[in-house]
């Protein structure tokens, strides 16, 4: 059976230090939560078609650690880890996120809040990524680009339309 596509992820920048990712799924929230928090399942989607997830460790309790490592086809390894801060099963998960590829990584940890809201068997997932600094947020999205990016998503919508 064909998989129902629920559309693409939507990314906005609510403030200088935040990234908000939103996506709707054609599944109840307890299954989305399961896919999000079960290592064998995380290995199947975290790679984003950019390689393979070699490590997915999840110690799902407050104070417990998580760590994901993926390897691109040309051998580039990317690791993230963090600590669970708040857990409401099937609804809300707050955890820190450290990108292991930068100096002083721990100081630049982001705080991620996952929320799942179900309506009529469909689930809206949001991830709010909060960085201690705007620079950290910008680096999170793309380390290769320097500059003073501000929240300009309304403008970007216009740009997207004008490029169509």
């Amino acid at each position, binding site marked *: 059976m064909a998989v129902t596509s629920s559309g693409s992820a939507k990314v906005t920048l609510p403030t200088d230090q935040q990234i908000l990712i939103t*996506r709707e*799924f054609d599944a109840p929230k307890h299954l989305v939560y399961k896919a999000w928090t079960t290592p064998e399942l995380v290995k*199947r989607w975290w790679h984003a078609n950019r390689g393979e997830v070699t490590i997915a460790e999840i110690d799902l309790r407050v104070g417990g650690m998580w760590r994901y490592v993926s390897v691109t086809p040309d051998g580039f390894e990317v690791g993230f880890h963090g600590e669970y801060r708040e857990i409401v099963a099937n609804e809300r998960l707050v955890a820190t996120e450290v990108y292991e590829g930068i100096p002083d990584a721990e100081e630049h940890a982001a705080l991620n809040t996952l929320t799942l809201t179900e309506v009529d068997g469909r689930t809206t997932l949001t991830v709010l990524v909060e960085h201690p600094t705007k620079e950290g947020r910008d680096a999170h999205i793309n380390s290769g680009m*320097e*500059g*003073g990016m501000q929240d300009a998503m309304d*403008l*970007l919508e*216009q740009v997207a339309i*004008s490029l169509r």
Partner: protein
Amino acid sequence: MARAATTADAFNAVAEPRRRQILDALAGGERPVNDLVRMLGLAQPQVSKHLRVLREVGAVDVRDQGRQRLYRLNGHALKPIHDWVKNYERAWSERFEQMDVVLEELKKEEGDGSDE
């Protein structure tokens, strides 16, 4: 470490709130500077200064029509900003597409077991 000069690229050009207002206004269509002065409630020299920065990065084009100078948005100059966010968005989109596959399986497994 040092920040690039304000006019270096589109990213810095749109980092200034007033310049984003100008771009928003121009997204609605071509306008003379007087319109922008009125819409932003700024003095003309300030608006002109912002327009100059936007022109330097190519975010705004200008043409003369009679005695008026008309400004318009050039979306292509802002494409790097758009792409910057879009790349990130695309990575998440692909993750979520894989999650769709996983979720279909989980739904089926649950259906095969006990009904709710």
